[in-house]
């Protein structure tokens, strides 16, 4: 008998049991799965790379990652946002080592090839003398993302030319998720993206964002301090939106009745935030949701959700709609968290300060909430590697088979209690992405949002 692993290679179709809410633990540890994720998800999906306000003028750039590729998001001379692979086409050196800044061009520190802000190869030392004119500069610019598009200022890029347009990819759920941040008004990123590493598989960080079950326990110490009103932790009404390609929103919603009441209150006093103080004393609270344009763009269902959106695969619209948290895989068992904090441009200094203080003190690595999350994820990742533990599926069964889906046209939503629908949906979509050999296949074969009991 040979020493090779006698188990068959993992079969993606058997890793996720959507109906029973079971997920094979090996998806958090298997090296081949991770490689497949990099190719079939991250190199194909629309990845968030930055917000336009971070790079407002030509030459301003922000370095980020798409999967395990380093990229530069930069405003070019025409004012368009470009996303360039941060690797010199000559010998592969990183063209940009800074996190952010302003550049007139990208100058490679190895041999001095110089690239325009759109990636075009401008200057090649010795082009005439050494290359003797034989280098086709038009072929040797920096590689760009295949497509770059913004949704209301949020810049996404995909490395796959076959990807459908961003808005089509986002669909109703993805758009509603981002609207929760950008529909309030004109927003901008506060300087200082917080970044830190957690020794966990990226998916365990992602599934946690739908997890309205853990705060009362994981964040018990913060709850005890009354820094978080307990009502925000186990809200009575939960609402789930499930979209194509894995997008989902889960968490507190307003029942139709409460929504109606809120609207009446708002009519009475445009200044009053109403019953849902979930996000504290911040001005207007959810009043912006009553604006006509917002109702139109989010729809009657979308406008009711106060949950946590995930733009598949790894972008969380967090903190009650003032932060984004991106989870970048840095290996099977290492995830980088990036926190982007947004303020509305017309906020008063005091309002602005309130948002920033909230972001610093609740989220990010020193946040009273966030500091308790990481070790749970790292231990879940570590445990999954155990020879015996690895054979036992994780349980995401809360609510499975219990909740009816309300379909308003193509808008599927669930009104329910705390649940694990969002997580199940994410893992089901994950399996679809892994199984699809390319975009057309994914378009044709991904799981459609449910319309019946799920």
């Amino acid at each position, binding site marked *: 008998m040979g020493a090779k692993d006698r188990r068959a290679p993992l079969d993606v179709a058997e890793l996720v049991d959507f109906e029973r809410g079971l997920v094979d633990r090996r998806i958090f540890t298997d090296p081949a799965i991770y490689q497949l994720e990099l190719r079939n998800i991250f190199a194909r999906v629309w990845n968030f790379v930055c917000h336009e306000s971070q790079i407002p003028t030509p030459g301003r750039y922000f370095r980020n990652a798409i999967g395990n590729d380093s990229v530069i998001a930069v405003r070019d001379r025409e004012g368009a946002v470009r996303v360039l692979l941060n690797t010199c086409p000559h010998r592969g050196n990183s063209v940009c*080592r*800074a*996190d*952010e*800044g*302003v550049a007139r061009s990208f100058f490679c520190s190895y041999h001095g090839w110089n690239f325009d802000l759109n990636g075009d190869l401008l200057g090649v030392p010795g082009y005439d003398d050494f290359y003797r004119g034989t280098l086709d500069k038009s072929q040797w610019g920096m590689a760009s993302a295949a497509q770059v598009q913004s949704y209301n200022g949020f810049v996404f890029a995909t490395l796959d030319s076959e990807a459908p347009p961003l808005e089509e990819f986002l669909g109703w759920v993805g758009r509603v998720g981002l609207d929760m941040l950008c529909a309030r008004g004109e927003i901008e990123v*506060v*300087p*200082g*993206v*917080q*970044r*830190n*590493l*957690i*020794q966990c598989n990226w998916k365990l960080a992602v599934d946690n964002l739908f997890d309205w079950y853990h705060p009362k*326990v*994981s964040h*018990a*110490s*913060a709850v*005890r*301090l009354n*820094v978080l009103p307990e009502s925000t932790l186990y809200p009575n009404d939960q609402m789930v939106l499930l979209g194509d390609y894995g997008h989902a929103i889960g968490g507190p919603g307003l029942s139709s009745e409460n929504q109606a009441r809120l609207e009446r209150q708002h009519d009475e006093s445009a200044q009053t935030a109403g019953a849902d103080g979930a996000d504290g004393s911040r001005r207007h609270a959810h009043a912006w949701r009553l604006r006509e344009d917002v109702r139109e763009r989010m729809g009657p269902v979308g406008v009711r959700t106060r949950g946590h959106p995930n733009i598949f695969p790894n972008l969380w619209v967090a903190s009650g709609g003032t932060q984004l948290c991106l989870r970048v895989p840095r290996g099977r068992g290492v995830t*980088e968290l990036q*926190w982007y*904090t947004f303020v509305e441009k017309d906020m008063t200094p005091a309002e602005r*300060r309130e948002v*920033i*203080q909230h*972001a*610093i*003190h609740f989220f*990010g*690595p*020193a946040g*009273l909430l*966030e*500091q*308790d999350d*990481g*070790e*749970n994820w*790292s231990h879940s990742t570590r445990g999954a590697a155990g020879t015996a533990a690895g054979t036992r599926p994780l349980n995401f069964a809360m609510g499975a088979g219990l909740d009816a889906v309300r379909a308003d046209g193509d808008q599927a939503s669930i009104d329910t209690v705390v649940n694990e629908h969002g997580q199940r949906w994410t893992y089901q979509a994950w399996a679809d992405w892994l199984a699809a050999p390319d975009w057309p296949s994914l378009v044709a074969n991904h799981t459609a949002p449910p319309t019946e009991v799920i």
Partner: protein
Amino acid sequence: MKALAAMTLDERVRLQFEVEQFLYREAELLDDREFERWLELLTDDVHYWMPVRRTTTAREADGAFTQPGEMAFFDDDRAMLETRVAKLRARNSWAEDPPSRTRHFVTNVQIKDVAEDEITVACAFRLSRTRLDSEEDSWVGRREDVLRLTPAGLRLARRHIFLEQTLLLAQNLSNLF
């Protein structure tokens, strides 16, 4: 207090001793998890701040740290620090249960200024944290503290913490610097 320049060498030696001993004692209280006694060493108007650092080119090096009013890792007044201590003390404060083992190394202590009742002190620090089966983190940087001489002795009135890391390598910042 006398201005620094007006002090004799002996006065400076004595002040150095008192400042160092204060900083060592304060660090020890944190490492011993005597957080309430640590709070006693803070003034009511203490400001505790750790900005976000970014890697920049040499040309733009001035912009490495975020400014006051921008994002930070810590931007705390006394009430917030008391909240942090209360959290550390609460049951099921998981990030610190089992407790981390920390050690603050305070070195290269320099008194940069003495003005009225306030002493500005710079030091190099290394905070080392060990958890569980000896998982180790460490944070290195420069601290700029303001100590105030009060009737009860020296008190910490301001702490600015400048880390070297841009991407934090640790899972969280659940300890005090």
